[in-house]
């Protein structure tokens, strides 16, 4: 079935959720659970696997989106590690990098949405 704007809206909600969960780790609201940074358990990655790939599997843009998400998860894990080591301000400042990845993901989603 062709993807609708509703499908892409799902992806956006999932990506905001990751940022919010990471922020909550860096502000001491939540513990940094390994699942938060595991690609296979990331809600957006699961969306790519189950919704996007069946429609767009062969497109290079899908691989690019996966790469950006993997980089965002690695950066997030790195920030959580810094926070655990007591580098709190440095870790929080690193959220800017996460926002940059989020912007990239948004642009990639938009471009995929146009081809849908």
């Amino acid at each position: 079935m062709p993807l609708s704007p509703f499908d892409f809206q799902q992806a956006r909600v999932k990506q905001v959720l990751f940022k919010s969960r990471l922020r909550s780790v860096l502000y001491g609201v939540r513990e940094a659970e390994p699942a938060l940074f595991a690609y296979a358990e990331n809600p957006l990655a699961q969306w790519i696997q189950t919704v996007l790939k069946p429609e767009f599997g062969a497109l290079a843009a899908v691989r690019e989106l996966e790469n950006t998400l993997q980089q965002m998860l690695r950066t997030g894990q790195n920030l959580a590690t810094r926070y655990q080591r007591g580098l709190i301000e440095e870790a929080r400042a690193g959220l800017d990098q996460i926002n940059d990845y989020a912007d990239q993901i948004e642009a990639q989603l938009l471009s995929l949405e146009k081809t849908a």
Partner: protein
Amino acid sequence: MWVGCNADIHEQKLMVEELLEANEQQALLSDQAYEQYQRAQQQRQILLDLFADAPAMISVVRGPEHRYEFANTRFQELVGQQDVVGKTVAEVFPEIVSQGIVAQLDGVFRTGQPVMGQEQLVRLAGPDGQLRDCYFNFSYQRFEEKGRPAGITAYAHDVTELVLTRQALEQLRGRATNAPESGLAS
């Protein structure tokens, strides 16, 4: 000073916590909405598949101009396999405008009163442009969206052969009744 700073941190943490809670809830809600959407799509597909190959002509027209949104296989056969979706009834069947069919659709759309017909004569243009008599059993029913008239669903059976056969039989019977009783008079 220190107390104020501590309060700020506490407040900041509280805001992050609230934001997280809001986003978790939104994600949950979004998953539920998506699940409902998928279920609705699947149900829609089941109905479309059922209608597509039904042994009757089924079509859906939208808006006051009666623009085709769906036409099943039998209906496509009637119009010589042309793609009617996106065209109006008057564009697909210009010959029926003067026969009052479009006015009938206008009435259904305006009043919401369904119309049912038995063996209604419609003169349709064939591929050669010649008009031929066709007879249909049909029903037109208005559907609404958000409480407003949205379009008409049409269901029709082509009973032309049945009607023509009956007419031929009636003619034969008529002839047999009117014919002089052969040979008996002499």
